């Protein structure tokens, strides 16, 4: 399970970084989205991978810490998802504005001279 998660995060980060460095705005935004998915999974993984363990204490306190998930990373992931979503949407608007103003989807606003 850890291996699958680690490979997943690695592949997404790798593709995200590659896309982020591409010259088209669409590639950049997809790269940023992939990176943010990878980071969200990473934060989630920091809390440890457990199955059938609620992040809520049973009545009467903790019986067995192994049957309990840390709720903090989950809360962090939720916040990170919301903020990432909002900023990506904002970036999309700027991307469209740039396309409209310059007539090209190159990140520098003009095609590279050949």
């Amino acid at each position, binding site marked *: 399970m850890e291996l699958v998660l680690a490979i997943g995060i690695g592949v997404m980060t790798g593709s995200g970084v590659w896309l982020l460095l591409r010259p088209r705005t669409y590639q950049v935004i997809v790269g940023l989205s992939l990176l943010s998915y990878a*980071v969200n999974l*990473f*934060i989630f993984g*920091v809390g440890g991978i457990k199955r059938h363990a609620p992040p809520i204490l049973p009545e009467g306190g903790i019986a067995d810490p192994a049957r309990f998930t840390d709720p903090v*990373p989950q809360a962090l992931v939720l916040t990170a998802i919301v*903020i990432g979503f909002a900023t990506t949407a904002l970036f999309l608007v*700027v991307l469209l*504005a740039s396309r409209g103003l310059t007539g090209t989807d190159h990140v520098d*606003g003009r095609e590279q001279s050949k």
Partner: protein
Amino acid sequence: MSFWSEHLVIAPILIPLVVGAILVLLDEKRRVAKSMISVLSTLALLVVAVQIMRYVSAVHAPGASVTAVYMLGNWPAPFGIVLVADRLSAMMLVLTALLALASLIFSLARWHKAGPHFHTLFQLLLMGLNGAFLTGDLFNLFVFFEVMLAASYGLLLHGSGPARVKAGLHYIAVNLAAALLFLIGVSLIYGITGTLNMADLAARIPELPHENRILLEAGCAVLGVAFLVKAGMWPLNFWLPPAYTAAAAPVAAIFAVMSKLGVYVIMRLSLLLFGDQAQESAGFGFDVLLYGGMITMAFGAVGVVASQALGRLAGYSVLVSSGTMLAAVGWGSTGVTAGALFYMVSSTLTIAAFFLLIELVERGQDAGANVLAVTMEAYGDADEEEEDDEVGVAMPGTLAALGICFGMCGILLAGLPPLSGFIAKFAMMSSMFNPAGLGSDLAIRPSAWWLVALIILSGLSALIAMTRAGIRTFWASIEGTVPRVLVMEMAPVILLLFLTVMLTLEGGSVMAYLEETARNLHVPQSYMNDVMSAQPIKPQEGGQP
């Protein structure tokens, strides 16, 4: 404590949040009402910030500092979220409020009409800045950072135009990537130490087992990179000069304090987490800051000399200022930190004043005014001329006033006597050469010579560039068009420069405050104790919370 002083610490976050929300609801046509509300809110922020500063600088016992801790959910520190106001945060709050007031008044002359929701974005930017200065835990730092960044994206694009959109596109992409690094760093730190509270983190780091330290240091390094992007350390700063040049003048002025937020966080976390008490990890990253800061200064100094446009000159001055601060933090001694804090206040005020001044000076050369006219047209603002008359009277003796302000900016940036830029640089250099006070024969660190040389050379390059630009602007103009400058636009510039004069005259008491601040930063035990021992408020009899 009374109700008001108890809740004073959260006011710098609540006031702009509420005001920003109210301003969204008001129609764009009611500009006067919006401006009034915005100015009142910023004035209130200034009053609150000064009150907080007075509260934390009150000396109750010698050597003991006061840290105001505000528990947001009334839970004690490592479990609940806390706001912490100490001397450094209070100083940053006052600085932010002063800059905000100046750039807001400046924007009222014309810039706030160049696009929708200027005041809302401005207030939310202030909320993010104040929150980031006050927060006591890492994740809230992220949240406030994002609030600030989201508002800054909007403000950078304020006024629109291809140049701004292009700079904005780069700025947003760089900052989104930095935010992701921030998250990776925070989650690594949480995974190792199990806490996000800064004070708790500082207490846990010395007890970490050896094998976990590599991961912790990696986490802190990743986190540091995110802030160094914001602060503009070479080679993470190529986005900064174009973005700051493209921004509207009042926006660029408030952005000057935004770069200092990156420096603030680096300073706070480095000294808190990796001070002497961190044992094995003590001093982690300080060399990177010292040498990185020095390279940034050199890069900025070359950029300043190479700049043709005034806007770029100011952008590179931001880098010189950040580089000096980072190198001083990396130096890691109390005296240098105190001098660096003085330098931070002085250079932030100067650069903000300079950004505002550039707009006025360039108006005479027509380039800036044309762009503004076009954007005004795009928003269908036909009655611009009439409103200009309402807003204020044209300034008499404009060129003389502009020239004097320009000269003062030059002196401040170059660090020449008699103004505060000189005192700041002198304070830093003097404690580098005399770490234990005058007369002691402690060996001078070899890097001191490099750092001092860079501080002086960066001042020299600022002097050359400012002289050249000044001659070209004020003496060699062939057409001789006198820019039409309103008193209202000149007043904020004069206010900011007057503050640097005050900083010079009151140098002794300001330095005393900053030396105490630096001592608290380098020996953070009282900060940690105050945060960790703060007690939640007991519910009173009769159900009153």
